[in-house]
């Protein structure tokens, strides 16, 4: 299944993408060129509003643009795709309710899931009950482990355990061995803190103290000031990372700063200005095309109206590239498995999952633009190269790569037995 991206296809897709961006729409009806048969319906449970709207913006953009692009390039198994997007409002009750809407009213075939772990955890079980495949976008390790692992869920993006395992070693080598963590005192922050401590310890470093940031604390300074000034590096899993960095730099902290996985999708890095200089991040994709050496990613950028520096022309915003990659790989996973397993209707989804468990890896291609991705059948978790990024002279550039092999951690479930 090698699909070449034609220039005309890209043109058509970008026209469609621009039209799509012009008006906020909930239900996307895509046109289909060279496709036939009933559409495959993909539901997207997305954070269009609420606190996580910043990352939702990019997942929505990517899903809409890439489904249009797929339709312009033969669809999936020759069938057109219909994308139905719903808004979780970044809220558990609304998110779960909208998932039920997708499953029961829209009767979608597959779901691109929420990025918020609480919504994802509550949703994957409901998708599982309804025997619909849920491709989670949450990067919380907990959503695919122990009680939360369900057969009808796969994750084509990375997670906190994998990023910590991969990135900690690299950063301990290049920054130093003494670390502190400044974490949001919520489930996500605590879990990032714990995985980072594990990763650092495994690499011969140590995390001295961890400073908690209470929920909704209006002023960060009282907490920032407690960070040990003798540490080599500061690891920051907080949602208001922008504010934390500005305060740290303003208060004379000159330590190296590492943001938690996929933080650069939460905001436009250029907002940091001079404060951002030297700040590290952990992402699944760089931002600028020349850091990727990937004609496939260049095509995706073009289809979505994003320039080679990662700036979207319509909004002027810098792309949340990890979000984009997560959606692309999820769609790539669907395309490959639908076509290879001969999936026709919802009744074939169980067989599709069995087939997907037998596929150990996906090769670099149009929807896996940055390289091979391996799939661990036990917990349905994908592993990919992790990019260590750094802000240098006002740009976010590639600092290093943690190859996917070193991001692998032990699975605590085995879904293939069930």
């Amino acid at each position, binding site marked *: 299944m090698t699909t070449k991206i034609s220039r005309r296809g890209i043109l058509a897709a970008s026209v469609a993408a621009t039209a799509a961006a012009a008006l906020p729409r909930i239900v996307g009806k895509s046109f289909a060129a060279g496709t036939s048969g009933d559409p495959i319906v993909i539901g997207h449970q997305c954070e269009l*509003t*609420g*606190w*996580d*709207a*910043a990352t*939702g*913006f990019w997942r929505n953009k990517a899903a809409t643009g890439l489904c249009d692009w797929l339709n312009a390039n033969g669809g999936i198994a020759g069938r057109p795709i219909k994308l139905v997007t719903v808004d979780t409002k970044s809220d558990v009750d609304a998110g779960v309710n909208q998932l039920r809407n997708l499953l029961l009213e829209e009767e979608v075939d597959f779901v691109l899931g929420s990025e918020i772990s609480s919504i994802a955890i509550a949703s994957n079980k409901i998708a599982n009950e309804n025997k619909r495949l849920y491709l989670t976008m949450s990067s919380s390790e907990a959503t695919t482990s122990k009680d939360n692992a369900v057969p009808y869920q796969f994750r084509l993006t990375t997670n906190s355990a994998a990023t910590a395992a991969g990135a900690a070693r690299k950063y301990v080598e290049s920054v130093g061995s003494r670390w502190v963590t400044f974490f949001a*005192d919520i489930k996500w922050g605590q879990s990032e803190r714990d995985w980072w401590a594990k990763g650092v310890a495994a690499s011969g470093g140590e995390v001295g103290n961890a*400073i*908690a*940031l*209470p929920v*909704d*604390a*209006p*002023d*960060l*300074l*009282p*907490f920032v*000031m*407690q960070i040990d000034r003798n540490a080599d590096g500061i690891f920051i899993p907080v949602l*208001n990372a*922008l*504010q934390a960095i*500005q*305060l740290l730099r*303003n*208060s*004379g902290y000159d330590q190296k700063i590492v943001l938690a996985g996929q933080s650069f999708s*939460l*905001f*436009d890095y250029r*907002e*940091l*200005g*001079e*404060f951002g200089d030297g700040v590290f991040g952990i992402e699944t994709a760089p931002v600028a095309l020349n850091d990727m050496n990937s004609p496939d990613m260049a095509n995706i950028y073009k289809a979505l109206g994003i320039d080679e520096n990662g700036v979207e022309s319509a*909004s002027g*915003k810098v792309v949340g590239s990890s979000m984009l990659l997560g959606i692309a790989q999820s769609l790539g996973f669907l395309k490959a498995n639908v076509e290879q397993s001969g999936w026709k209707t919802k009744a074939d989804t169980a067989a599709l999952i069995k087939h997907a468990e037998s596929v150990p890896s996906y090769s670099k291609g149009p929807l896996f633009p940055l390289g091979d991705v391996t799939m661990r059948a036990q917990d349905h978790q994908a592993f990919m190269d992790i990019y260590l990024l750094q802000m240098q002279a006002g740009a976010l550039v590639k600092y290093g790569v943690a190859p996917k092999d070193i991001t692998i951690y032990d699975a605590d479930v085995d879904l293939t037995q069930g």
Partner: protein
Amino acid sequence: MIDWQTLSFQIVNGVVWAMFLGLIALGLNAIFGLLGLLNMAHGAVYAVGAVIAWYTVSQLDSFWPALVIAPLFAAAVSVPVYRFILRPTIGKDMMVGLVATSGLLFIISDLLLATFGGSPRLVPPPVSGAVGILGFYYPTYRLVAAAMAVAVLATFWAFLRLTAIGLWIRCVAQSPTLAMASGVPVERVYLVIVVLSAALAALAGVLIAPMTMVSHQMGLAVLGPAFIVVVVGGLGNLAGAVAAAVIMGVARGVLSVFLPPTYAEVGAIVMFLPLLLIRPNGIFGGRA
């Protein structure tokens, strides 16, 4: 062993932050005290101020004009909002005003998301650097902004004491009926209060913008603490609210030296419970 340097830092910062909280609480206090409205949209106006600060910096390349633009904008918008939405709710059950202002909160927040977008932004401090006080370095901008906040609070106090409108406001605060009977233009006083309150909230948003992260939802988090200091300080009592804000800020700072941050934050809020029990009319008892 007590780390005196950290302790003194936390106390200074607590007092400085209290000035901003006091400024936010000021308008909330006036509207609650005079119009009897629990203004849920107050935090959203504050967010609008911060967003205007960001636009000013990105369009005009300078922070300072925002100090004028944001309050003027908020004041201009507040006039029709008062006429058509707030005025009809005055004197009715507390719930009516709460529903109306919650509606405004929803409207403003969603308009902010639609225009400003979901990504948070940063406003760089217009005054950079840090000054050394008591052996630690403190961001200069915080001191400058705190001084401005104090100046605004003092001006407002003088306005209440020295101008005719100020006198009327104090009359209405004591008894709207009596004030109306003695010829005070109560309607105009209400309008002035609403306009001033909106302008001050927007101004607070501008001043705080360089210390925080500008986002469409930033108004929600300040509402709780602002309401707390308003009531603990005593409804309609300007100095009381500032005093309560200082107590909260210093307590948070001092507690955070001895306790894990989350407990310090909780402690700084919970210690107001006994105050609410002992002094039901606020720290200083009466009204302004």
